[in-house]
């Protein structure tokens, strides 16, 4: 029971408080529309408010009487306000009675209305159920058809897909085939290229090796030749000295001055060192000098030469240069 009144009470209090503030602040509320509520609690709250407002009014009146008796204008205005307020309150009281009356009528109306609504709802409910049944059936049918169609489409799609897939597969295979062929070709080309390169390299290497081998052989031959030459040269040099000595011993220099004279004579030898031919190839310009040279060579014959036929070749032809130093 207590809970039943708590909310209206509070509402009533709040209502009266607002009224008081409005009165005090002299604020116009007329224009404010108050949304009517179907809830009956609102009446009770109004009652409580009246007493309170009165109390408040009293209080205010008192205060004004006590405190501001001197101010006639004000008192007048207050009196006017009070009269106005009193009129308004009377209006308000009347209004509220009307409203209460209207609320009562409304509540009756509402109850009838609710009754019809409940009936109508029931009817609707039933219709809806039927409709639903019908709809379910339709839905079921549609679903079946859908399923069927979907199935057919799926099949069709599947088939198409298979075909496509097959085609794709085929295409892919062919592409693969082509690719492989391409790769094979490329690989083959590369392999051939590599092979050619390798061959080339091999050939080059061979050539290089051959060249190196030949070079080494040449070098060796050269070295051997050099060595042979060196040995030959040594032998040649020693025989050259011996020949020179023998010729110098047989060269009777002309008694005339030989200063600045020189003569070159080419001598051909046969094995054994005998002079076959001695011919002045560069004359000294002095007939006697040249002759002394020729005689010296012929006189020195046979010249001491090596027995070795290999070395003899060096001595087959000699160029003797007679150039007396002085």
């Amino acid at each position: 029971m207590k809970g039943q009144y708590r909310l209206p009470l509070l509402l009533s209090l709040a209502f009266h408080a607002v009224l008081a503030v409005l009165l005090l602040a002299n604020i116009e509320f007329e224009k404010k529309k108050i949304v009517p509520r179907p809830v009956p609690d609102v009446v009770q709250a109004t009652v409580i408010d009246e007493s309170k407002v009165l109390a408040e009014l009293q209080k205010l009146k008192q205060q004004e009487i006590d405190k501001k008796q001197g101010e006639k204008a004000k008192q007048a205005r207050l009196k006017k306000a009070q009269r106005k307020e009193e009129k308004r309150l009377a209006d308000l009281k009347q209004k509220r009675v009307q409203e209460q009356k209207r609320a009562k009528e409304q509540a009756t109306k509402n109850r009838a209305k609710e009754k019809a609504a409940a009936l109508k709802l029931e009817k609707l409910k039933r219709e809806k159920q039927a409709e639903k049944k019908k709809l379910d059936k339709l839905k079921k049918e549609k679903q079946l058809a859908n399923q069927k169609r979907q199935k057919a489409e799926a099949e069709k799609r599947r088939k198409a897909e298979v075909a496509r897939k097959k085609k794709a597969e085929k295409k892919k295979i062919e592409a693969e085939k082509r690719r492989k062929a391409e790769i094979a070709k490329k690989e083959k080309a590369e392999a051939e290229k590599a092979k050619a390169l390798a061959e080339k390299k091999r050939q080059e290497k061979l050539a290089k090796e051959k060249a190196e081998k030949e070079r080494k052989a040449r070098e060796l031959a050269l070295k051997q030749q050099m060595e042979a030459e060196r040995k030959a040269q040594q032998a040649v040099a020693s025989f050259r000295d011996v020949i020179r000595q023998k010729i110098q011993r047989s060269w009777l220099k002309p008694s005339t001055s030989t200063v600045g004279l020189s003569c070159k004579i080419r001598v051909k030898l046969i094995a054994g060192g005998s002079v076959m031919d001695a011919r002045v190839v560069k004359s000294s310009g002095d007939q006697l000098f040249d002759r002394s040279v020729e005689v010296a060579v012929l006189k020195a014959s046979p010249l001491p030469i090596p027995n070795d036929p290999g070395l003899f070749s060096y001595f087959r032809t000699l160029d003797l240069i007679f150039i007396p130093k002085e």
Partner: protein
Amino acid sequence: MLRRLFLLLIFLPTSVFSAALEIEITEGIEGAAPIAIVPFGWQGMAAEAPLDIGAVVAADLSRSGRFKALPERDMLTKPTDATKIRFRNWQALGQDNLLIGQVRETGAGRFVIQFQLFDVYKGEQLTGYSMPSSAKALRQTAHRISDIVYEQLTGQKGAFSTRIAYVTVVRNKNSQPQYRLQVADADGFNPQTITTSSEPIMSPAWSPNGEKIAYVSFEGRHSAIYVQTISSGKRERVSSAPGINGAPAWSPDGSKLSMTLSVGGSPDIYILDLITGSLRQLTKGYAIETESSWSRDGKMIAYTSDRGGRPQIYQIPVQGGKAKRLTYEGSYNARPVFSPDGKSLAMIHRQGSAYQIAVLELDSGILQVLTNGKLDESPSFAPNGSMILYAAKKGERGLLAAVSADGRVHQNLVMKGGEVRDPAWSPFK
């Protein structure tokens, strides 16, 4: 390394691979060239030729020092005909050259001498002549052959057919000495006396044309210079001034005679013009100035002077001027004589206590002593300049000797008779 080898190979060919190996001969021997002179053949009435031409030629060539004649006994064959020569034989004997010849009598006292000179090693004839000769001229013909052979083999004109003049002294115990001016062949043969005197004869000098000899004679106890024509024996006294009349020397053109006169107080060089007879004093002063010799171009005179205290060689322009000293080596240099080519002076040079013949090379100033005697004097060049004839002393006798101009070959001229001195070699004819 390899590159070096190649470089080496690039340079080696000249010595290694070229066809001919080169050998340089810088030295030879000096000395006499061996020559075989086969006795000349003889075709005539007498059993043998009036003169052994080959022997004369061999002696001539040997005397020159340039040749060494093969002794006859060493000859394997004695060909007188070119077709009989086997050169190999002469090569085996080490002979460079071979001379063969023949003497044919073509009439009474008339001969033809034929000779051929061969190169033994080349086997070829170098020269050959055929020359007519009288019996008297045979020896002279032989000398001419020597000249031809000598010139062929040495390149120098031979001087074998030239002559020499010299003075001999014959001393007899019981009489006065006999001084003779003689002229002989260059080999000393055929000596002919052109002047005889009991007083000294000195300093014979050949005129450049070889026809006259100027000399000093002390006949009459007074020196005088005479010029004598050899062929006729006629002579002319060209100078007999008080004091010394000495050391005559012919100008190259034969027109003047330089001489030493002391008429001015001390011995000085004078020049006598033989054509005009004018006399000009060339040197002056208190010193001894003597022994003049004309340069080949006739512009300078070299002479001996002791103006420096000791005798040395000086030179002065013939036209007069400043004397220039030429010798500085040694304390005694005297009796200068120009070589035929004018490039050097032969002189007497004292070395230690020995007086020897030396040659001063004028360009270089090098003095070379040629002889090794103690008392060598009176040098005289052969006209080809190859030898210097001079007087030497051996024992108590004076003799003539010759040395090659390079000092290599020494020869003594053996002459009959007494002491020989003051040689003078004639010019070429």
